[in-house]
């Protein structure tokens, strides 16, 4: 029997969103108290979002000594203090705030995504990953044994499994060779420790498992179940024994950094040593999720709504980065990807970029744009955070808090951009989390300045198109074509080409082409 005083979970509600009405007496209340009596509960099934929050609070209160509340939420203006000559700002959040080092891995667990822990050795990266496996119901021993340790001699067989020797000798065809698959492939929480020490060839095999959810040896296929992935590395830039292949890095949805240990919490560490306690071995059963519960949670998170005003701001933000006027002659090819694929020196291409205010344009701060996978991860984690906070729809604050962790290592800064040369922005060269959050803030400021919540003619045209073309008369189609052409004329008049305008113009071109094709079809009837 394990000792349950360590196994107490936070009482519900862990995040009371509204003032509760008077609690109607339930006879079960008589039996609820300091002793955790299984049948003393009220009989209601604990909601999964509440269970997820209880898991979070158990981890931060008992398992991981992580006093950093860096995911800040405020419902009233927070208290702020400027400290020292450098005016370093300390904010005291006014609403429930969280530690990214626990929160993001937990959201990864809830969405079955892929999370990379980065940070120096001995900061609890592996222990945190194992905890997530325990939350999925696996014994600690199984998780430890199933964890893949990256090392320079790791072969594909080490990673995936071996053909049975007897079959290798006796088989008349490849189909007859049976494979002894490694057990971790069938688990719903997968841990790859020090993934940047895996040789490149083995990384490719790992990529197939991570990306396509199957493993292949000698033409034999093992279909893996959907799983949450946790990878650890001492360096998120892909350093280590081997360079991490870019496709593998791109499969990672979020990156969290193990922040430094605050020596003020040394007594906690000391007590843990003296008590000889391993938190991962003491996870209370109340916060362990069954497979069905995780399935349900994934589905529930998918159902969280993204309201249109929030979605528009995400669109506007994402529009800022890909456009690169100097990279292409044809409109569609004016992108950073075109420049990158050309292999022309970045500085050389940038020097040809003129006509825009390079300080104001936040697109100039990056050397790349956002991929579809990045956007999907951003939406998925924003939904998950909203779910975790007990809301039904995503708020801009949710997006603001997940963006840095999703785009870390995805949106790469151009440190030669004018933005970084300003003294007040020099800190963003090293603090990528704050830089990415600042990027979103700047994008939102521009969105507000342009008053796009109320004045979005491209959005109106898109909405009209979304109603469908069926039954649309030729006159109406022509009127819409004229409207699109007029709008492009207005947009182009005297304005410089910024990322959001570029995407608006491409959308208008798309609409124009769809109406043009429809018109041709109408005429052919």
């Amino acid at each position, binding site marked *: 029997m394990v000792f*349950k005083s360590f196994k107490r979970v936070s009482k519900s509600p862990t995040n009371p969103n509204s003032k509760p009405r*008077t609690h109607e007496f339930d006879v079960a209340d*008589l039996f609820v*108290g300091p002793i955790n009596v299984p049948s003393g509960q009220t009989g209601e099934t604990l909601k999964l979002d509440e269970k997820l929050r209880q898991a979070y609070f158990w981890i931060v209160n008992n398992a991981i000594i992580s006093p950093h509340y860096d995911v800040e939420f405020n419902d009233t203006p927070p208290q702020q203090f400027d400290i020292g000559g450098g005016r370093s700002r300390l904010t005291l959040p006014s609403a429930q705030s969280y530690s990214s080092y626990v929160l993001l891995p937990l959201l990864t667990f809830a969405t079955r995504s892929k999370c990379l822990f980065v940070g120096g050795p001995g900061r609890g990266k592996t222990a945190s990953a194992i905890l997530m496996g325990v939350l999925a119901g696996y014994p600690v021993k199984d998780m430890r044994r199933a964890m893949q340790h990256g090392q320079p001699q790791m072969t594909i067989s080490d990673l995936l499994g071996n053909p049975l020797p007897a079959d290798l000798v006796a088989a008349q065809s490849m189909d007859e060779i049976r494979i002894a698959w490694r057990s971790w492939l069938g688990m719903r929480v997968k841990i790859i420790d020090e993934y940047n020490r895996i040789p490149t060839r083995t990384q490719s095999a790992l990529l197939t498992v991570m990306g396509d959810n199957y493993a292949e040896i000698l033409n034999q296929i093992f279909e893996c179940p959907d799983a949450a992935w946790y990878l650890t590395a001492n360096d998120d830039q892909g350093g280590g024994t081997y360079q991490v292949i870019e496709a593998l890095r791109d499969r990672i949805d979020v990156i969290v950094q193990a922040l430094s240990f605050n020596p003020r919490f040394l007594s906690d560490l000391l007590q843990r040593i003296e008590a000889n306690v391993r938190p991962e071995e003491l996870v209370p059963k109340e916060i362990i999720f069954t497979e069905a519960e995780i399935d349900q949670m994934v589905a529930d998170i998918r159902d969280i709504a993204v309201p249109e005003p929030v979605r528009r701001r995400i669109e506007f933000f994402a529009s800022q980065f890909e456009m690169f006027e100097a990279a292409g002659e044809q409109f569609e090819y004016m992108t950073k990807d075109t420049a990158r694929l050309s292999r022309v020196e970045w500085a050389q291409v940038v020097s040809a970029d003129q006509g825009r205010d390079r300080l104001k344009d936040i697109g100039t701060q990056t050397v790349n744009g956002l991929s579809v996978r990045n956007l999907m991860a951003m939406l998925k984690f924003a939904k998950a955070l909203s779910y975790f906070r007990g809301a039904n729809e995503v708020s801009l604050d949710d997006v603001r808090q997940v963006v840095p962790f999703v785009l870390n290592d995805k949106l790469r800064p151009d440190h030669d951009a004018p933005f970084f040369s300003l003294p007040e922005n020099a800190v963003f060269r090293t603090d990528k989390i704050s830089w990415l959050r600042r990027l979103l803030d700047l994008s939102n400021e521009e969105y507000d300045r342009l008053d796009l919540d109320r004045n979005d003619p491209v959005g109106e045209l898109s909405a009209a198109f979304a109603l469908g073309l069926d039954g649309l008369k030729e006159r109406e189609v022509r009127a819409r074509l004229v409207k699109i052409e007029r709008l492009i004329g207005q947009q182009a008049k005297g304005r410089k080409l910024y990322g959001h305008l570029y995407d608006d113009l491409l959308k208008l071109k798309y609409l124009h082409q769809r109406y043009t094709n429809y018109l041709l079809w109408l005429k052919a009837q």
Partner: protein
Amino acid sequence: MSISQPFVDILSARRQTFNNMVSTARLNHTGFDTEAFSNFLGEEVDAIVQAVFKVDPGRAHHIAEDLFEMAVNLVAQNRAGKHAQDGLVNRIWREVAPNIPQLILIDALESLGALTNTATYVSGQSGVRNNDWLDLLRGIAPRLNSIEQLRHLVTVVTWRSGGAHIRNAALKAASELPSEIVSLAIGYPKNGKLSESLVPLAADIWWTPGRLGPSQGHTIGGFVGLGGPFPMPPEIKAVYDGFLARSDDQYFRLSADVFGAVVQSVQAEDWEESQAVSAHDTVKTFDVTTVSLNMPDEDLKFCANSSTIVISSPHSHYIRVLPRRSVP
């Protein structure tokens, strides 16, 4: 303090496990008093282990682990032991638990754990008479033979000891218990049919057997600074299922019946959204000299619903609750 041999053997056999529990409690509760815990083990837990050992020596070690773990939790939270916030949990472990080994052997958590939880609930309810509650349990619980019966009994004796707010749940629980147990729990009938008591009790909140005479009602409330619930003399409103009280910016529900009266906090919305009912005829005919009020006679306020009359005063933090039949 000396510990019995069976308990010593159990502690020795799983020494590391028990030590780990204490270490973990020290980890999570910086003020954990190991001496207080040792005393609690020696005085309360040991007696229970001995009682259990006598009935089923083979399962005693298993039960002892559950008891030890509960004890660690309770002492760590200052719910038991010498630093206990109130004595009721200690008394449950000392006076009731050693007499119910048959229930603890079924499931220590579901029996003693549930009893302990109820003790913390009861001690937080100013209207529930703790001594009555404990006496009833001590007398009746040894006669039970299932956890389900224990839960029903706890509900009934909590009601009987003044928990008027759980009246409906208790009536339902009473219907699930053997009649001799219910008779003991509610105090009557001693010799008659149980249905002759439960039916009128369900129909009339102030019913008492004729031989006991009519209920004289209850005095409840009090100033918050002296342990009562009200910061100011309360204003009362009769609603269809009882009474609400407003005191300064705080709101309360009053539940009363023949066994007692309880004041519980509610939200402002409950006060604002509840429709007042009134029984003015009763109030007009009320003669204050017929009852002992313990409050100044001037400016008395009367409030009544179909079964009960409540008397309050702008000069008192107390409320007098009376059955209507006691009104001439």
